[in-house]
């Protein structure tokens, strides 16, 4: 009589994977500074991304991506669907939180020099993730199909048109025609729920893989005495529980924000009526201000140039250090100036009306 092999063995037979590897991966030693929450912003972004995916799928059940029905379907989600307003508000606010977390995470990485050799490629991936996140925000905002989203899309595609060489083609591709219209909404929808999530998932996967392969950057603060056996701790359960606690706190904050500031709805899109104020989302304010200060073409060129420098900064800095003995402090100074410029332009645009 054959003995029943048991559920565990059956599973092992069906999925011939060495599960002990998970334990090995999970027990990856991480540096002691990760005990502090402000070093956990990378995990925060991942957590918010997961919320985006879950709430986004829920919204997809009710959203209709056609100019005639998009606004009405968002109105129905907000006013009629049970808990629709809450899911929509969570989606909106987690997107905002995500952009904030990405920026804070990048600040920390930049100023602690965690982008330097051998992690240059991961900085580039992180930068692409920032761009993806902002594009997520922009396309999502446009799907609401209210006045501001329609006119925001019009301005943004005009900006895209001003990109040297590929601009007109890019704008035509985004709009699905010469003007923002029926095809634009469909294209933004496909980008928002199909292309961007795939790109983001791949980049996140690659980003984490590289972090795992390189290990987390070791930071040693002057004057801090840490015993050798305390310099590292296991990813699981120590760091995992810290991340979980942050997740719970984030969920609490998100719920509170969604309750106090639920996602609203402006007037429906009307291509014949230009609103008094056309504003993109806040994270594009810097670019909008630059546009007003210069010209459409120059602002786009400046933004692209700044983006390219930031994207390739680990390599540029390395090259400068090698050739000109570029001091570390200068990197900090340049980063500070660049970020302060971003802040000033953003606040300026907010108050400029």
């Amino acid at each position, binding site marked *: 009589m054959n003995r029943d092999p048991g559920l565990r063995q059956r599973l092992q037979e069906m999925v011939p994977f060495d599960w002990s590897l998970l334990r090995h991966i999970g027990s990856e030693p991480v540096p002691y500074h990760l005990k502090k929450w402000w070093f956990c912003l990378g995990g925060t972004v991942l957590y918010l991304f997961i919320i985006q995916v879950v709430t986004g799928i829920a919204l997809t059940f009710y959203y209709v991506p056609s100019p005639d029905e998009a606004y009405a379907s968002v109105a129905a989600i907000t006013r009629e669907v049970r808990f629709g307003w809450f899911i929509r508000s969570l989606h909106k606010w987690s997107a905002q939180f995500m952009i904030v977390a990405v920026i804070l995470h990048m600040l920390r990485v930049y100023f602690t020099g965690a982008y330097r050799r051998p992690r240059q490629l991961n900085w580039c991936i992180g930068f692409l993730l920032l761009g993806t996140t902002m594009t997520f925000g922009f396309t999502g905002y446009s799907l609401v199909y209210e006045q501001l989203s329609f006119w925001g899309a019009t301005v943004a595609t005009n900006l895209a048109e001003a990109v040297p060489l590929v601009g007109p083609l890019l704008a035509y591709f985004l709009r699905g025609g010469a003007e923002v219209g029926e095809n634009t909404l469909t294209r933004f929808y496909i980008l928002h729920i199909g292309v961007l999530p795939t790109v983001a998932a791949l980049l996140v996967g690659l980003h984490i893989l590289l972090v795992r392969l390189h290990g987390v950057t070791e930071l040693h603060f*002057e004057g801090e005495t840490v015993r050798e056996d305390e310099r590292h701790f296991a990813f699981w359960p120590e760091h995992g529980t810290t991340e979980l606690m942050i997740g719970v706190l984030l969920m609490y904050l998100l719920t509170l924000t969604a309750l106090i500031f639920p996602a609203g709805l402006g007037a429906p899109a009307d291509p014949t009526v230009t609103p008094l*104020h056309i504003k993109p989302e*806040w994270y594009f304010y810097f670019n909008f201000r630059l546009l007003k200060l210069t010209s459409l073409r120059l602002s786009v060129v400046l933004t692209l140039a700044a983006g390219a420098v930031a994207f390739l900064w680990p390599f540029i800095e390395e090259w400068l250090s090698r050739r000109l003995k570029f001091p570390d*402090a200068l990197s900090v100074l340049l980063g500070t100036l660049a970020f302060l410029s971003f802040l000033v332009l953003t*606040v300026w645009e907010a108050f400029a009306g």
Partner: protein
Amino acid sequence: MSLTVKRYVVAALSFLFLLALLLVAYQESRRFRQEAGLEPVVTVANRGCVDCHRKDGPALVMEWEFSRHAQLGVGCVDCHTAEKGDLDGWTHEGVLISALVTPKDCARCHAREHEEFSGSHHARAGEILASLDNVLAEKAAGMPGNIADAVNGCWQCHGSIVRFKRDLQGQILRVGKEAKPVIDPDTWPNSGMGRLNPDGSKGSCHACHSRHAFQASLSRSPENCGKCHMGPDHPQIEIYNESKHGIAFYANRGRMNLDKVGEWVLGRDYSAAPTCATCHISSYMTPQGVYTANSHDVGERISWTLRPVVSTKLNMVVYEDGFKEDFPDTRPLPTIGDLVETLEKVVENERLVSRKVSRRVARIVSWEDRRKVMKGACLNCHNDTYVDNFYKQFDDLVVLYNEKFAKPAQALMDELVADGILNSNAPFEHDVQWTFYELWHHEGRRARHGASMMGPDYTHWHGMYEVAKHFYVKFLPEVIEAAAAKGPAMKQKYEDRVKRLLGRDEHVWQKGLSPQEAEALRKMYEERYNQ
């Protein structure tokens, strides 16, 4: 650079970033509140006025803050600014302003509305200052040196001629260190619809769009029109309240969308009931889409005039300069391109005078066209047959009043004047003149207006019943009484005249009903009241 220093840099930049986000959020929320109308936009030009008048007249500022103007950043100076040379202008806190905001001022932004209004009956409401009504208020109810009845009564609806106090040299009196002009208190404050303003404009937008909140819901509400369209001589608001339309409005006020910003279209934005504005000036849906009438020419859809002794259908002639003139259907119409001598009333030296102006005809709107536009509103709820039958009922009532009472009474009055019994310069000397005036001006209008707006009680008991009763028991005896004062021959002439009139088919009923009618009447009372 040490890692500790870098840590502080990150902390400082993160703090600044979050601070920037808070600032952006604050500003965004402020802008949202402004756009949603929850917060006024006070521009630099208006900041001083608002700050100071908030202490001086806080409720006034609060009302403005509540207005759509405030949401759009249109403030005190934008409306109250005066031009150099304006009689009512003075420099206040360094800015040339005027207390009096006229349609000409409003036209700086609302040009279309101003143009429509300027050609309307409303803009000419002040021309009543030379009418019998004004004689009654200034002479009959007033006394030399005191025309308070006209000032407080007629002029507050019809409008005053805004005048200034002047010195012995005829110069406008100015007081205070800012040399503020002194307006004749008999003529201001005044929110009359046809106010005659020092800048030559006619009217007062404030009559319907009460300052400083300029609430759409207020001007769309029937009560707003009811300030003037009420009382014994034109009780439109009472008739409306009595009508099915009025009943539906008051029962469904909450569903009327009266606060709607922008266009307010019957059949799209609301459906529960029509208000005065709905039928006379607002937009409505048609099978072809929105009829964007929304005209500030309040008489555009009126096909009968129900105001004079005898009603007539009204055609409208529009001249090339935009001047509009009603042509009763008894007056031959010109053709397009004709040069017509028109009579226009204007203020010269603070007095209303008539001026003849030759104008070329640009467009003719027949009474049928005007009625068609009115019917367009009706058709949002009723079908063609219903609307046509209503107009048949209404037309018949006006014809009945005209033919049975108004025309014979007018003919008798004309004869009395021709025979020298009545002095046309003394319009209220004899009882018959008072009775005749009330017959058409009060009772006759009530009957006609009652029928025009589906008010059964005003049509009959307050209208035709009173017309008939006073025609038979007051007017006709007073005609003979006035004639008798002139001598027996005249008395005899008018007795015969009245006898002939009462011998007409429509009056012979007075001599008695037929036996069948009398029996039916007796039986009805017996069955109904057991008497």
